[in-house]
């Protein structure tokens, strides 16, 4: 996870990649390359995922049984592995999202206390 060109891209926090993958898979089975592209696109290219790091994360999630994998055929007619959310993963996504929201709010409150307090 590194910055690519210049300072306008942000490094991912530890564990955030897992959340992003789960979120990406919410819409249905996706293969590896497509997950990387989706994350890049949806963050409007601000988040730069070093694409390789996606795979260890995928395997970690499989091991935790949050996602499952099956063989499929990609859009350009190649065999590819498709990843999809399991029921357990779906639940985990909710938990992680809530956690993330809380974290984001808490950090925002610390960084801009005045603004936060000013708005009832």
């Amino acid at each position, binding site marked *: 996870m590194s910055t690519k060109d210049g300072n306008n891209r942000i490094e991912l926090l530890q564990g955030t990649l897992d959340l992003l993958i789960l979120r990406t898979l919410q819409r249905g089975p996706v293969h590896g390359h497509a997950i990387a592209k989706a994350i890049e696109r949806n963050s409007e290219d601000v988040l730069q995922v070093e694409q*390789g790091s996606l795979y260890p994360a995928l395997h970690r999630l499989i*091991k935790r049984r949050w996602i499952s994998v099956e063989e499929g055929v990609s859009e*350009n007619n190649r065999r590819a592995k498709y990843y999809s959310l399991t029921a357990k993963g779906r639940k985990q996504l909710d938990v992680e999202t809530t956690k993330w929201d809380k974290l984001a709010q808490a950090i925002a409150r610390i960084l801009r206390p005045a603004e936060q307090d000013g708005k009832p």
Partner: protein
Amino acid sequence: MTRRQKALENLNREINDHIEQDTQDHIARGMTPEEARRAALSAFGNVGLVKEEIRAVWIPIWIDQIFQDARYGVRMIRQNPGFSVIVILTLALGIGMNTAVFSVFNAVLLRPIQYPNPERLVSLSTQDIVFNSEAVAKADWMDWKDQASSFERMVGYGPSDQTIATGDDVTRARVMVVSEDFWEVSGARPVLGRLPQIDETNTLLLSHKFFEQQFHSDPNVIGRTIDIDGQQVVISGVLPEQFRFQLSPPVFPGFDSVSDVAAYRPMLHLPEQRVRSQNGVAINLVVAKLKPGVSIDRARTELKAIRTRIAEANPKWFTNQKQLSVLPLREKLVGDARQALWVLMGAVAFVLLIACATIANLLLARSSTRQREIAIRISLGAGRFRVLRQFLVESTLLALLGGAAGVLFARWGLAIVLHLIPQAIPRLTEATIDGRALTFALSTSLFTAFFFGLSPAIALWNVNVHNLLKDGARTFSATSGSLQVRRLLVVVELALAVILLSGAGLMVKSFWRMNAHGPAFDPEHILVMKLQFSGLQYREMARQRAYVDELLRKIPSIPGVQAATVTSPGARIFLFVEGVSVPGAAPPQAAVFNATSAALTRVMGLRLVEGRWMTDGEPAPVAIINESIARTVFDGRNPIGMRVRLPGRPPSMATVVGVVADLKYSKLDAKPEPEVYVPYAHTPALGRLTVAVRTVGDPLASAPSILKTISSIDKTQAVFDVQTMAEAQADSIAPRRFSLFLLGIFAFTALLLALIGIYGVIAYSVRQRTHEIGIRMALGAKSGEVVRMMVRQGIGIALAGIIIGLAAAFAMTRFMGSLLYDVEPTDIETFAAVAIGLGITALIAALVPAFKAVRIDPINALRYE
């Protein structure tokens, strides 16, 4: 293809596809293929690292690292072959000895009897203190069998050595006479032929070994009639190869060893055997099988009640001197061997501990040369636990190799022991390296790995990475902790060695006491052999006497023979002395009546104390008693001229004409027996004879001509167990020799390892202080002072080890009481000898490296590093 390889291939494909697709995307956006590929690769990141990370997700990282450690360990072992071989051999020695002793322990103490429901088998016996026997009168056994309800079966059995004519060969063999219940209790099923039917008594079942040796495994022997002790019997079956006789061995006089049973014969039941008379009774041994759910206590109570009824019905017969003993068969079988085995097991465990300490010491010595390597590993980020694990994995590898070699050692060792002293312990011949012994070897290896792998790791725990890696730093200086550990290990080794040496020393002293005999008795020059009259023609005493007369006339004329005699040790019977014993009441003492000839004193070197010895051709019956009887029975009165009753019917009396010194010529570890010697011409029956011949030179060299002469008298009478008196005596103490042999080996190994340990520590400290010694010598220190300085620490270690060891030995040798003979377990002389002996050898072991220190050239020493 393994699952792992397949998964890796899948992963490779996925990653390649990913990069390929990214490349295509870039090309679509207008890049050249080369640019596109470069961009895709750079977006992906480090492919190798990604794969590594994924593998770590698949397999927990520690497993991967252990494999890494193992590979590294194998490399270390191969890099130092000399060191590794020493470690593996030391371990193999320790583990091998332990596995061998364990396999004996397992066979004798742990492995159940191979008969069905062994837990229900009990040994029944009536122990007679005066006669030192534990057989059951047949009449009693038959009453028990009829009346007792606690037992499902009750086997009567008795061994006898019989002459078997197999075609043209005549051989002596142990035949077990068994009642019909034996087949049910032992669960024996013949591999050939069938079991004897009830009331079928003239049959014989062969053991597999005897079948192979004497009948060349010829299946046609079934149904063949052969001659046993002059009787015709039919071979009815052959028992399986793995079948063993596992009922308690007899302790009759004359049956000294638990040799293999060659054949089984059904027991005869004669009506007159139910009659109880004072004239002597048929006896046998009894093993019974309890009914399911019946406790041994209930069985004992019931038998006691039956015995009380028998005693009331036969007041004259029952002398109340017999004690009923009802014991689980397994306990009975092990007997005295239990303590010996526990002692040996403990001793051999000590040897293993010493071996571990030795190896830990070696590893410590080597680890000082590996400090730099370890410091580099730590500074590169290896955690201390990782380093510790590295040590443990390496030591485990060594231990497993050592364990494997140890199992080989154990097999050889066991074969040697079984070959040397098969009769040392009941069921010893059943000992094998089985699954349980292998499990034991494996767990022992892992235990040792932990023990000796941990100590260098602990000593290196506080390695100062910074100091070690400083250029030119003296690598040895940082290991004073390791030297402390090494000194401690050597103290432990010495202490353990002292315990083992004390145990072995006590046994050596016991042997010395056992073998102590007068100068005239010279067992090295006496040939003994056994002879038992067999066949109808020798039923008459006159024929037996005539045979012996001729034997004693012919043998002394053989060149090299000085004198020849026979002894026929009869059973122990009550010693009735006229005017001393109360008529009608049973006399309090029993004695062994030996029928012998005048030459006995010359053959055995028997010393006359009082009166005279017998001559050949005494006109009236005479008796010579030994000092044991003179002391106990006559109690100060002069026995000469008194009359004792001879065994046999009708009772005859013999006049005591002399007293001879006690002589232990059969069982070395027993107290001298009360013995009476009478001329063979005046005894009613001889039965079994021992022929003893004193020769000028090696008795075994004269043996062939003696045997030829004996066979020329009557070749149907087989002579057996031909050996020197010294050998016969050694056999009589086989269990003790077994214990001494093993304890001796253990103690010697322990001593050697402990000495290597003390040598190693001093040598190490000399090496460490070379620089300092150089300075001292350059400043004018005398070499004697330097030697003293180096040896002083060796003496400290030795003293600590010896003192701790003596204290521990003092506390522990009491557990070997039953292994000793005429020696106290806390014999001061032995302890002192061990302490002094070990002290001196330890001093020498310390002096050798110390003198090396003096030979150091100060110039070289100061240049050192």
